[in-house]
Every structure is written in structure tokens, then in C-alpha cells.
């Protein structure tokens, strides 16, 4: 590969791996900024992937090329609906957040395969979708010489949307009334309560947003990568997203960069095999590298990351 191809490949493969993680980790950030620990992201992604696939298969003829985009929305909505379980459990029923999140992770794949069997006549995975979300050139930007070719040509647009969404999320969290209130219930719900902010409502919004974004993240997996739903469509991405959120210090932009970093590490391990000097290394080195690099970078360069103060704490309104 020449340098140009290597760079192009790094960018595009980074985005392939990172896009689902960006959305999901942003979701996690909202939830935990609002004080609800969400280890159920994996389960939420499963629901998003499953629902969007069913939608796409059922309606691809009606909506044509718009199907994958609508499917993302459907995935988001279903993720949101599914996350209500988590919201009810943690906000109203005072469940331990980790237990409730684990329930999502166990429930989702079982329910999705179960429903697949119900819907598709006993089959354990769905058919292949016909309208997939594929890479395209971004208008105008892709015309920029060199940079356009590397970054904006033949690229996964949803990944760039995710990157923009991270900045938007930051802005929402730090510059709007909603964001201020959401963060306040994650830092000190008692204080928010005395100021007339409904802690329950804010925490519900936080979880539901995470459900929506996690659902979209899962939908990206099925719409752009596996092109169907099967039990291994979501195989650990939710946990990687959780890791990205912590890595990014519970900051949307940080989470986004962390997700990109994971993608970049994966990408390096793939592209590394094309770089002459190191291509002779044992394959296991390339397989282990992304995870090892993550640990090293986190331990030695990023350091401690602190969760919002009341993250994981159940708020009980006094009566």
C-alpha cells in the first residue's frame, strides 16, 4: 500500500469500528451525567440492531434508499423504549444500577433471538437487508485535495454525524438549561430537588437519551456492518462503548475521541499488517495490540477519570 492508501484505509476502518461506539458511548455519557450508571448499553445496542433490521426488511420496498436512515431512527426509538426498563428499575424501584443494567444485557439478546424465531418462522437470524447503509463521498468536503480524499471520500457518513453529535452533545450538556439540570441531578440530586428540579424526570430523560443513542449505535452495526441481525451482531461493542465513556472521562467529546481511539487502534492492527517492517510479526501481536494499547494509554497517559458525584446513587425523594 502507498501512504495515501494507508491513510485512507486508516480513516475509513477507524470509522467502521468507531461509529457504533461513538453513538453508544454518547448515550452512556448522558445517562451517567444524569447519575444513572448504564452497563446495559450492550443490551440496548442489541435491541437497536434487531429492531432496525426487522424494520429494514419489512419496509425496504416502501422507503427505498431512505430505509437505512429510517431504520436508525427505528432502532433509536426501540432502544429508547427498551431503556425504560432501566429507568423504571433504577429511578422508581431503587434497583442497583449494575444489576438493572445486567438485566438489560441478558434480556436483550434472548428477547431478540426469541422474537426473530417468532417473526421469521423459527429461524435464528434474520435475512440479509437489501438497503444497507454504505459509504459515500461527502459532498463538497470530498472535493478538497488530499484531505478530501483521505477523510471525506468513500466514508461512513454516520461516523461523521456521530463526531458532530459529540460536539452537539457537549453543547447541550454544558450550554443549555436542560444540560445544566441533567448534570445537576448526576452531581447532587438533593440540591437539584431543593431548587424545584424534578430529579426523577431528569434521570428518566438521561436514561431514555442513552437508550435512543445506544439503539442507534446498535442499528449502525446491523445497517452498515453485518447487514442482518444475528446473535453475534452485538458481541461486546456495548462494553467497549462503556469503556470509551470512562476513557473519555464522562465527557461527550472525550467519549467520542476514545471511541475513535479504539477504532484507530483496531485499524492500526489491521493496516499494520501492510506496513513492510512489521508485517512479518506474529498475527497474535496484531490481535492483542488494540487492547493492550488501550490499557497502556489509559494507565500511563490518561490517568484517573472520575465519575459524576452521584453516579449510581439512588435518589429517594422524601415525602
Amino acid at each position, binding site marked *: *500500500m502507498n501512504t495515501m492508501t494507508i491513510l485512507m484505509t486508516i480513516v475509513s476502518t477507524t470509522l467502521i469500528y468507531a461509529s*457504533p461506539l461513538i453513538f453508544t458511548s454518547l448515550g452512556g455519557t448522558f445517562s451517567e451525567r444524569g447519575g444513572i450508571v448504564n452497563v446495559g448499553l450492550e443490551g440496548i445496542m442489541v435491541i437497536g440492531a434487531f429492531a432496525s433490521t426487522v424494520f429494514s426488511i419489512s419496509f425496504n420496498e416502501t422507503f427505498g434508499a431512505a430505509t437505512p436512515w429510517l431504520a436508525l431512527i427505528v432502532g433509536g426509538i426501540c432502544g429508547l423504549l427498551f431503556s425504560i426498563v432501566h429507568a423504571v428499575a433504577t429511578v422508581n424501584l431503587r434497583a442497583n444500577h449494575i444489576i438493572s443494567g445486567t438485566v438489560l444485557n441478558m434480556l436483550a439478546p434472548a428477547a431478540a433471538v426469541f422474537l426473530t424465531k417468532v417473526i421469521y418462522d423459527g429461524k435464528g437470524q434474520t*435475512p440479509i437487508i*437489501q438497503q444497507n447503509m454504505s459509504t459515500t*463521498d461527502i459532498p463538497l468536503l470530498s472535493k478538497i485535495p488530499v484531505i478530501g480524499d483521505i477523510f471525506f471520500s468513500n466514508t461512513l457518513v454516520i461516523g461523521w454525524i456521530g463526531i458532530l453529535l459529540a460536539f452537539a452533545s457537549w453543547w447541550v450538556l454544558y450550554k443549555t438549561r436542560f444540560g445544566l439540570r441533567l448534570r445537576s441531578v448526576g452531581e447532587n440530586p438533593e440540591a437539584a430537588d431543593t431548587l424545584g428540579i424534578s430529579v426523577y424526570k431528569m434521570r428518566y430523560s438521561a436514561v431514555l437519551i442513552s437508550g435512543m443513542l445506544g439503539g442507534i449505535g446498535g442499528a449502525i452495526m446491523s445497517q452498515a*456492518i*453485518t447487514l442482518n441481525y444475528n446473535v453475534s451482531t452485538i458481541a461486546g461493542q456495548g462494553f467497549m462503548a462503556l469503556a470509551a465513556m470512562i476513557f473519555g472521562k464522562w465527557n461527550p467529546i472525550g467519549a467520542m475521541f476514545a471511541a475513535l481511539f479504539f477504532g484507530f487502534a483496531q485499524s492500526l492492527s489491521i493496516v499494520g499488517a501492510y506496513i513492510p517492517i512489521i508485517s512479518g510479526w506474529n498475527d497474535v501481536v496484531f490481535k492483542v495490540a488494540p487492547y493492550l494499547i488501550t490499557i497502556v494509554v489509559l494507565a500511563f497517559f490518561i490517568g484517573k477519570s472520575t465519575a459524576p458525584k452521584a453516579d449510581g446513587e439512588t435518589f429517594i425523594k422524601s415525602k
Partner: protein
Amino acid sequence: MNKLIKKISLAILALGIIIPLSACTNRSASNNSESQNKGNSLAVALLTDLNGVDDKSFNQSAWEGLTKWGKEHNLTKGLGGYDYVQSHQDSDYPVNINKLIKNNYNLIYAIGYKLDKAVTDGAKQNPNTKFAIIDTVVPDLDNVTSLTFKDNESAYLAGMSAALNSKTKKIGFIGGVKGEVINRFEAGYVAGAKAAVPDIQVDVKYVGAFDKADVAKSIATAMYNNGNDAIYQAAGSAGLGVFSSAKDARKSGKEVYVVGCDRDQTEEGQYDGGNLTLTSSIKALNTVVEEVSNETLAGNFPGKQHKVFGLKENGVDISKGQLSTDIWNKVEQTKQDIIDGKITVPEKP
């Protein structure tokens, strides 16, 4: 508090009894299959590995064969007829074998090399049950037949097709996890490609898992970017990522292909401009399952035997897919050469 908990549990218990009772009406329906299948001497079950019978791969192929066979013999799916069981973890194999035996299945297909231990133990303990194991050899047992496939032969043809079709003289191979079976694919593919086009470059990569479609897609993207114009995927459900990468490449105007594996993967290759599944190497588990079932029904269970299915035995094959007539003719010729023994295909890379 405790009293109330007691009350609640009573209430739930009551519900738990009433609801299922009301469902009893359904019950007779699902028991029908057993009565229908009575009187048949052969009940056949398929035991898959961790992937189910709709893995779009050889489990599915085997199940299709069994279903066809069952219907031909007026059997229904379920007890006493034919059925399949999927395992969720590697430790489930012996459990599932015992459950099938207990439910009076007398011929069990065990799909995958990972089941050899479970089959060996099960066969020794249950001499009256017959086993057919796929992809590996369990020797010296009267009630076990071993069925293996010369995947390398079909892979050879796949490699040849991809090489002949290649305009860039670069083709790729993406495997799931390195191993005995996948190695056969790799070996045959590389040999076939080199034989057809001596200066072809074959790029071999492994995902490291069978469930990471995102990594597989990234590898495929790198390969297509690097100028490979066909990739042979042998990566299980991760292989779906190869198809989606190829669809992306097509959209950006590259004429790239995927070579399918185990089953005719034309469905996976469909996209709005046509089909990008160049061809698929086929493992004809369906015909083999039918064949062995018929033999068993006729009282000729090939116990203790190791049957090898190659191109000659119609155990493996290749689909025409999108191959040009020109290439297809060459492929057919080579196929004949292999059948005739003029070409020997290596098993290891």
C-alpha cells in the same frame, strides 16, 4: 412485612397455576408430531455447534438436507421424526447428545470437529444409537461414521475463479480463527489461485474470532483499498462484514467481489446494482445428510467408516454465480481434472 410478602407470593403462585392451566388447550397440538411419527423406525436429529441451523453456512445446509429427507419420508419435525438442537457453549455438546438419546433419536448428526469428544463418549455409552460426525474422524466405533469434506478442492476452484476474474492480480482471503478446517480453505484457495494465475498476490488475514463482523469489515475494507478485487470469506457470521464492505466498495465504483463459503451465498451478495457474490464454494452437507439417512434407513449404516466427500463424491462443489462463461469452462475443466486425479490439492497452507 413478612406476612405481606407471604401474601404476595401466594398471589403470584395462584397466578402461576391458573395461567398455565388455561393454556392446556394448546398442549395437544404440539404433541401431535409424536403420534404422527409413530411407527417410523428412524428418528434423526441434527446437533449443531455454537451456530444454529440458520447460520447461512453448513449447519443450514445440513438442516435443509434433513428437512428434505424428512418430508420425503412423511416425517414431521419433532419427537420421533427429525429435529435439530443447537448448543450455546462448548460444554453443552455431551448434554445435548444425552438429551437426544433419551428422547429416542436413533441417528444423530454431529456437525463440527468440536463435537468429536462428545460423540466418542456418547457412542461408547450408547451402542444402539448411531452417530454421524462431520469434519473430523472418530475411528473404530461401530456406531459412528465419520464424514469429512475436501473443502480444499472446492476452495481450489474458488481461488482459481477469483484469480482468473481478477483485474488487479490481487485477491484476498479472510478467515475466522486459524484452525484445521479453515486451513484447508486457505490452502486450497491459495493453490488454486496460483495455479491459474502464477503471478497473483493472495492476501491472507484472520479476524481472530467468528463473531466480530466489524473487525472483518475493517479488514475487508483495507484489502479492497489495497487493490484486492475479490475476497474469499471463511469467517462465519463475521464474514457478513466482508459482504457489507464489498457493497461499499461497489458503491464507490470499484468492481469487487466476494467469494462465498459453505453455501451458495448469492443472497448475501445482492445489492441494488446486481450481485457481487462471484461464486461460492459449496459444502453439500444436504446431499450427504440425505444419503447417509437413506443408507441408515435401508439398514446400511456405514459404521466405523470414514467417508470423504470431495468433488468426485459430490460432497463439495462450486456455484457458477457471476462467473463468466469463459472462466466457468476453465473451472469445469479443472474440476474434472481434480476428479480424475490429475491435480492434487494441498490440505495445509
